């Protein structure tokens, strides 16, 4: 019985730029990145940020206008998709509708110089890996969305590519299935030690599956780090707001002392990690869940008035009017007796606020 192995290799971009046609704005602007072998790295960003273009350049479906692309240390910048050892799982799955599941999975193997017998065995192993043994003779149209998705994964896996690419693979699945499939993908990835580059615009999905996340915005990398780094220490307001939600406050750094900054926000003063910033205007990002709603006038709070209180089952959501604008807060204490119109005080949980550049 053949077994699916991994030939995981690293991916590296060196100052890669992609300009479509005569467009004045580059789709990807001078991006450098490195994906270590055997890791799952997510490209995350709003639509039009260049993440899919980046992915397609790894695949060889788009050619870089400038810069260098390396896979496993070898320069593949000029190689077309056919000649790169990269497989891709498409958003639409792109299963060939006129071929059976088996034929689909065997498709790439046929061009890889395997013996006929081995092709069959590898295809079987691939289908088994995704839990679809026995579905080989069906047509893609006879499978459910989740099953089609797994066929697409099997088809890419059996080639034992150096890099496996996923282009928003879950966007066509319903919410419950999404959670399960993403765990399956992560399981297979860790089990086989694959290098995976994964594109999504869903930050929750990205946080859940990734070893590392590369956030892109306006054709450049906004931040590159582990899920926790991105969440707890966003580099700028965009990342703070894109990864989870964040309230952004204008604040003032009064002084910095040994990495600790004295921050003034209205009448409130706190000490925070300075993150290399100097005294002057800055911004403060605070997660909604790290804002505490307290009775009006409590110490170390800023005053506000509850505009809206929404019950969403597991949480209560608040919109609070303050001198800094609307603030969004979430509390899991659903039994708290708050009503709209009430005056409250907003406090920040420890480790809650993060300083970011103005």
């Amino acid at each position, binding site marked *: 019985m053949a077994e699916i192995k991994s030939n995981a290799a690293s991916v590296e971009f060196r100052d890669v730029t992609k300009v479509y046609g005569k467009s004045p704005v580059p789709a990807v602007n001078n991006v450098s990145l490195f994906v270590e072998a055997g890791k799952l790295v997510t490209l995350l960003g709003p639509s039009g940020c260049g993440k899919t273009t980046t992915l397609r350049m790894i*695949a*060889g*479906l788009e*050619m870089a206008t400038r810069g260098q692309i390396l896979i496993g240390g*070898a320069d*593949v910048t*000029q*190689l*077309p*998709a*056919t*000649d*790169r*050892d*990269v*497989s*891709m799982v*498409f*958003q*639409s799955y*792109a299963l*060939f*509708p*006129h071929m059976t599941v088996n034929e689909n999975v065997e*498709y*790439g193997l046929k*061009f*890889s*110089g395997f013996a006929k017998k081995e092709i069959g065995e590898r295809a079987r192993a691939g289908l088994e890996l995704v839990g679809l043994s026995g579905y080989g003779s069906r*047509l*893609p*149209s*006879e499978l459910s969305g989740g099953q089609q998705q797994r066929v*697409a994964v099997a*088809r*890419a896996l059996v*080639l034992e590519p150096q890099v496996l*690419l996923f282009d928003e693979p879950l966007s066509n699945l319903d919410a419950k299935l999404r959670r399960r499939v993403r765990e399956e993908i992560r399981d297979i990835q860790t089990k086989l030690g694959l290098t995976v580059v994964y594109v999504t615009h869903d930050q929750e999905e990205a946080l859940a599956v990734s070893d590392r996340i590369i956030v892109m915005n306006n054709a450049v990398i906004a931040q590159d780090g582990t899920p926790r780094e991105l969440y707890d220490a966003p580099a700028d307001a965009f990342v703070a707001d894109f990864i989870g939600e964040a309230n952004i406050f204008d604040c003032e750094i009064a002084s910095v002392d040994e990495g600790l900054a004295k921050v003034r926000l209205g009448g409130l003063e706190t000490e925070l990690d300075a993150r290399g910033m100097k005294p002057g205007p800055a911004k403060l990002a605070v997660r909604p869940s790290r804002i505490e709603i307290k009775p009006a006038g409590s110490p170390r709070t800023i005053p506000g008035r509850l505009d809206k209180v929404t019950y969403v089952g597991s949480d209560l959501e608040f919109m609070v009017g303050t001198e800094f604008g609307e603030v969004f807060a979430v509390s899991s204490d659903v039994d708290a007796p708050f009503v709209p119109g009430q005056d409250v005080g907003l406090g920040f949980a420890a480790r809650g606020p993060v300083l970011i550049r103005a």
Partner: protein
Amino acid sequence: MRSREQSGGLHPTVILWMAVGMLGFAVLPWYGVEDGFFGLSWLFEGYPLEFAPALVLSLKGEKLWLAPLGLLMAAPLLLWGRQKSDPLFGKLLVAIGAAGFAWMLFQGFAIGLRGWQFGWLQGLFGELGDRQFGMGYGALLVGLAFLFLFSVGLAARGAVGGDVFVVSTIAFVVAAVGLFIFMPILQMLANALVTEDGSYSVTTFLGKLFSARLWSLDCLAGGSRCGVAWNSLFLAVLVGVLTTVLGLVFALMVTRTGFRYGKLLRALTVLPIITPPFVIGLAIILLFGLSGAVTQTFSELFGIQPTRWIYGLPGLLIAQLLAFTPIAFLVLIGVVEGVSPSMEEAAQTLRANRWQTFWTVSLPLMRPGLANAFLLGFIESMADFGNPLVLGGNFDVLSTEIFFAIVGAQNDEAQAAILALVLLAFTLLAFYAQRFWLGKKSYTTMSGKGDAGMHPQLPTGLKRAVYGVAGFWVAFTIFIYATIFYGSFVKLWGVDHSLTFAHYVKAFAVGWNEFGIHWKGSAWSSFWTTLQIALISSPLTAAIGLLTAYLLVRQNFAGKNAFEFGTMLSFAIPGTVIGVSYVIAFNVPPIELTGTGIILVLSFIFRNMPVGVRAGVASMSQIDKSLDESSLTLGANSWQTFHRVVLPLLRPAIVAALVYSFVRAMTAISAIIFLVSARYDMSTSYIVGRVENNEYGIAIAYSAVLIGVMLAVVGLMQLVVGRRNIGRRGHELSQSRTNVSQPAFSGGS
């Protein structure tokens, strides 16, 4: 990296094309073989000198100008051991390919029937004392080899992502279109300047171009007739407008009135498409001519004096409306169905009533379809040759005028070329006007998202009018076809109405003799030729059309717009013009094809290619591009992707292109009337001959047989090519088949 690196030696693709080129240069006869392209007698006669390959000729010291080609063909050996990524690899191949191809063209055109063609060459090298012959297999293979070596070189230099298959295909299509569309048209232009004594004169040309015969406006001032050009233009505009209106009426009836017999109507509209072009004209004569059935009945019942009113504009208009309305219908039904119901529903929820919705939303969204339908009707009418020949009377039009300029007593090629130019100018103007009118607005209403909803019904008044017009048209069509069928059994129409099989027997009698079946009937020869030519040309047409569509939809390359324009241009060139230009261009070396079957095949391929392109483009745009891309990332190259993924999914388009080009080859008349020869006579020109001799019985019987044969072959093609097996989605995709086949029926006749 997938392990694909070659180990030393030459690149396999280069070896392949060198081998092909060497086969052409050293083994096969360089010049055309007398007994036709498929004649192989030279094989058994031990290479007589005139069938010798270029290598032998050169060694014997003859046609020394061919020798450089051999050297160039061997030149890729210089690349021994070099990798594809080596910059020299690409540069050298490009240089070799370009030089070889250019030298072939140069020697082809520089040396003519009587030695040097250009004075300066004579001055340079003196009298040649030798002549050129038409090129044959050898030349063909060598030319192809140079072309593809050039492509491999370009690909190695990084053109189109370094894809050899795509670059080669582009080069091939460009070369083919250049050689068989642009070159003939240019030669025709040059010929239009030639005077009777063989010199070039612009004044004579202008005199002929602006002659009163073409442009007189006498009829407006009370005179008897107008210029031929005005006649053609007037008729074409009229036919274009009316077929568009009628086509729209039918399309609306099928989609917007809850009409239940849509399938029947569609079947009925196929009839005129598989009908040889002048049969309807004939039927109209049988009914409304001097001794026509309807004319006689009226004169007996009401004492109306029979006249020849039907000859001229009225008859032409009726015949062309009957023939071309179905084409407009097929174009418009796709468009009318394509208008997203949610647009119309949105208009209605915004308080527009049904009339307002129709005028402000539905109709404007159909604009591309309307423009297309008009253009088709216009070009078809311009190029129509059969009906004016039969029904024209004193109403002369350009197409028949061109014909008589060539076959008439004067045999004036220059005059024919000038007339063809005028015709071409009209159709190209219409082509541009259409593009201009549509502009850059987007009329895309198919979003690809779920599109539930219902088309609103037509307003009641409009619905009644639509039913009335359609009902009349259908009744009239059935009447016409019944007449054709009946007429083929009548002894002598208008004189002796007894029934007989005599016409069928005369045309299609079969007997036995010592060699087996003896095809006694007079029509058999042209019938077999037609079938053979149609069967050869239709797969070739479909192939080049679909390849071109693949390039247009799926690939991006420099000059794509020009490429698209070039391939679609022949769509606006009337068949008559193609016919004349082929006669002029391929009568003399280097490409000497007059009187062969090849010229017929070629004319069909390039006449009907735009149809294959459109069918391919329409259905390829419906296939998600990620299918191609996933195939590429799975390691298939672009040829494997085309062959294994795109083609199988394109089957409906293949059927449409095959069926259409086959039917067109069987029924075309305007181009081939100039190209047929005694040996390669076609059904339609044979029938025209019978009509000219007033043997209407045989003409009609033959046409009836052709209609039957076409129905059978079309059915067979559907079976052979088959359907895509894609399970559930098959249903949804088969819905799109109307869209796939709708652009199929376009182009001049």
